[in-house]
């Protein structure tokens, strides 16, 4: 390149500048109030939609400047999936990077195009963003009119909204047997899924048992499963079971789930349990309680009973569980199908509880093998967790036929058969299941498996009053998996009668259901009598709900207890009206395992308090 040489001295050269003299000057006066509008994406001051904000605090975690603190606002309620905290931003720290906006789980935090804020008082620089923006004070724009600047889009989003896919058996394979469907995460998958968690802790509040969910997920993320196990056993001795079949209310509250798929909390819990060898439990958890010399009797070895037994044992009580069936576990052993919860999983959890010194007396039905009074005499306190063992019937004509069955006994029969304890259950070629809950799904899918094993094809019709899958109380995954396995659903039909010819079930007739609940959300179905269908079947199974059985309780105790719609009324520590008698599980709260575990936990605390004060 030729270097620029100094031009020859030219008298007129400086006059070149004069050409700008003719140009029109561009001078814009600085407006007084609203400054020049910033660009569409400008990262100005924050606004926060308080209605949308759930107080998860993810913004404060990502903040590279530690500018955001979460402050509890009196008057905001702590609710399912919501915390009463709202972010406070320190403009003495903020670097306007908008990472808080990009990671906001709900999208409530956004930035405006506002950028002028001048004051002599440093106190003016701390600010809790609301819908109005910082200008609400200066009154520059009309209230709430500060135009939006930087908002999140799918490129700038730094939250991970997509779940790590759980490896599952293919429908064609799994329907042929009762092998477990969910294979469980590998180490890599679990760590990836754990990385999606933002550790907000909203789930902890929602979990009936208040498990330390963010903590054990973080343990997985760090690869320290022993620590994770300790977190699990702090609140839940049935982690193996819960890791498989919990109703995971936590996942419905998960803040990542507001815009995307929630973190797979249940599968992560299962991952810890699956990957810590059972032999190590004793060393890791290291439970060495001091014996208190008092004994507790527990009736029923379901989730609530086992949980109470575990916590009482860790406190140093002698615990005896009375179980009517041949094996402990209650609904976990006899209700939930084997493809969801294999026996081995349950055995592990129970074995650990037994290892703490809990005695489980099986085949001991209270009221038959042993009297309730005897138990009451033997122990310092008694905990009832007998669950809902009786099935409810639709009571339409024909339900008294032997081939019209209840779901729970059928499930029990199937499980007994599968582990070789009992005879083979009758397998119909065509089956109708009435009900739309999880039990209906369980029995439909169990029977579908038996049908495939027996006849090579599935013919199960599941009818429910609820008119859509969303309305049905069953979990969506359950419904989807059942569909994949060939179960036919007919939502929105109510039974009229079971058609019986020659003393044999031929099928059932149904009428269209118009609504299930009335305006007050009370159960009050309405039907269109003219719109009817008939479905052929050799067998009908009713799965519309369960009921408790209190026949084992002596009359005088039953009289003293208070019942609310079939459930025993207790105080906050699960203590009944009789001070030495505690109750929990389905007979108090329902409707799932985690509530049972929670009841066991609170009852154990209650019993401890009662006995310490006595």
């Amino acid at each position, binding site marked *: 390149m030729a270097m620029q040489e100094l031009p020859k001295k030219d008298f007129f050269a400086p006059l070149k500048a004069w050409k700008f003299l003719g140009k029109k000057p561009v001078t814009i006066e600085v407006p007084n109030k609203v400054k020049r509008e910033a660009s569409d994406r400008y990262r100005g001051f924050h606004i926060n939609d*308080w209605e949308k904000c759930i107080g998860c605090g993810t913004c404060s975690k990502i903040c590279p400047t530690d500018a955001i603190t979460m*402050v509890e606002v009196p008057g905001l309620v702590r609710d399912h999936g919501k915390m009463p905290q709202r972010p406070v931003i320190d403009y003495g720290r903020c670097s306007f990077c908008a990472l808080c906006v990009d990671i906001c789980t709900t999208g409530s935090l956004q930035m405006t195009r506002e950028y002028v804020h001048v004051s002599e008082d*440093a*106190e003016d620089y*701390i*600010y*809790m963003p609301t819908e109005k923006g910082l200008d609400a004070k200066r009154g520059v724009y009309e209230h709430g009119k500060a135009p939006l600047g930087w908002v999140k889009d799918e490129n700038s989003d730094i939250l991970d909204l997509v779940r790590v896919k759980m490896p599952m058996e293919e429908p064609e394979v799994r329907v042929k047997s009762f092998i477990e469907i969910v294979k469980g995460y590998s180490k890599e998958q679990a760590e990836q899924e754990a990385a999606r968690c933002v550790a907000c802790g909203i789930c902890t509040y929602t979990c009936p048992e208040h498990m330390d969910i963010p903590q054990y997920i973080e343990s997985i993320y760090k690869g320290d499963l022993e620590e994770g196990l300790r977190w699990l056993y702090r609140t839940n001795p049935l982690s193996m079971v819960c890791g498989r079949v919990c109703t995971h209310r936590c996942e419905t509250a998960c803040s990542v789930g507001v815009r995307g798929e929630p973190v797979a909390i249940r599968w992560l819990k299962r991952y810890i349990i699956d990957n810590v060898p059972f032999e190590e439990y004793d060393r890791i958890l290291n439970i060495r309680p001091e014996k208190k010399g008092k004994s507790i009797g527990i009736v029923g070895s379901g989730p609530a009973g086992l949980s109470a037994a575990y916590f009482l044992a860790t406190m140093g009580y002698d615990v005896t569980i009375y179980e009517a069936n041949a094996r402990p576990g209650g609904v976990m052993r006899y209700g939930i199908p084997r493809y969801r919860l294999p026996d081995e999983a349950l055995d592990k959890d129970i074995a650990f509880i037994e290892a703490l010194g809990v005695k489980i007396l099986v085949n001991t039905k209270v009221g038959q093998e042993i009297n309730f009074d005897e138990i009451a005499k033997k122990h310092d306190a008694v905990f009832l967790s007998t669950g809902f063992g009786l099935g409810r019937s639709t009571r339409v004509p024909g339900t008294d036929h032997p081939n019209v069955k209840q779901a729970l006994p059928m499930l029990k029969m199937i499980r007994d058969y599968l582990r070789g304890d009992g005879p083979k259950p009758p397998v119909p070629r065509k089956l109708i299941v009435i009900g739309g809950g999880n039990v209906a799904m369980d029995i439909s899918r169990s029977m579908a498996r038996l049908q495939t094993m027996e006849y090579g094809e599935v013919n199960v019709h599941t009818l429910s009053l609820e008119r859509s899958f969303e309305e049905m109380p069953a979990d969506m995954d359950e419904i989807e998996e059942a569909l994949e396995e060939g179960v036919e659903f007919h939502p929105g039909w109510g039974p009229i009668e079971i058609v019986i010819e020659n003393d044999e079930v031929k099928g059932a007739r149904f009428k269209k259901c118009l609504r299930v609940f009335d305006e007050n959300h009370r159960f009050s179905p309405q039907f269109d009598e003219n719109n009817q269908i008939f479905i052929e079947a050799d067998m009908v199974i009713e799965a519309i709900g369960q009921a408790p059985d209190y026949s084992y309780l002596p009359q005088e105790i039953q009289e003293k207890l208070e019942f609310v719609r079939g459930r025993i009324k207790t105080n906050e520590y699960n203590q009944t009206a009789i001070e030495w008698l505690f109750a929990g599980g389905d007979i108090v709260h329902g409707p799932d395992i985690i509530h049972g575990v929670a009841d066991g936990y609170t009852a154990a605390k209650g019993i401890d308090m009662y006995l310490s004060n006595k």
Partner: protein
Amino acid sequence: MMSSMNDVVKSLEGFNPFIEEIDEREVKVTVSPDRVIAVLETLKANGYSHLSLMTCVDWIDDNQLELVYILFSWKDGGKFIVSTRIDRNNPKFFTVKELWPVARFYERELHEFFGVEFEGNDDMRPLFLELWDEKPPLRKDFDPRDYSRKKFPDRKYEKDVIKEAKIFRGEING
């Protein structure tokens, strides 16, 4: 690895290096401390004459400091990351200021931030910090937040932000 870099790597074989390929034009060479100068000289003679960066990594768990020299060749665009590990408790190394005069300043910087002594470089005055009164700040066991708290107080806000926010939202009158 590019063929031209491959040739250079072959010429280093005598130094018993551990070679890692980071990408096509970037190779990490790990050698023992006593061979570093020779390796650097060989690389410089082979065209890798531009010292891009000289730095240090504190591997506190191994109780070692890793010295890193990044050499770049203007001829083929290849980069050599020459690395060696020295004892963290007694970090001593040799200067390379004869090879690259600018290294004097890098060495001063590393002395200041990691506490590494470079034999042969007598100019070890602090470069960036003034009146530093703590352990070398870039070592892993130094916590800058603690230091900052101790020496530079934060502001403690006293304003009732909740009240202000509620006034903004129109929930209460201010």
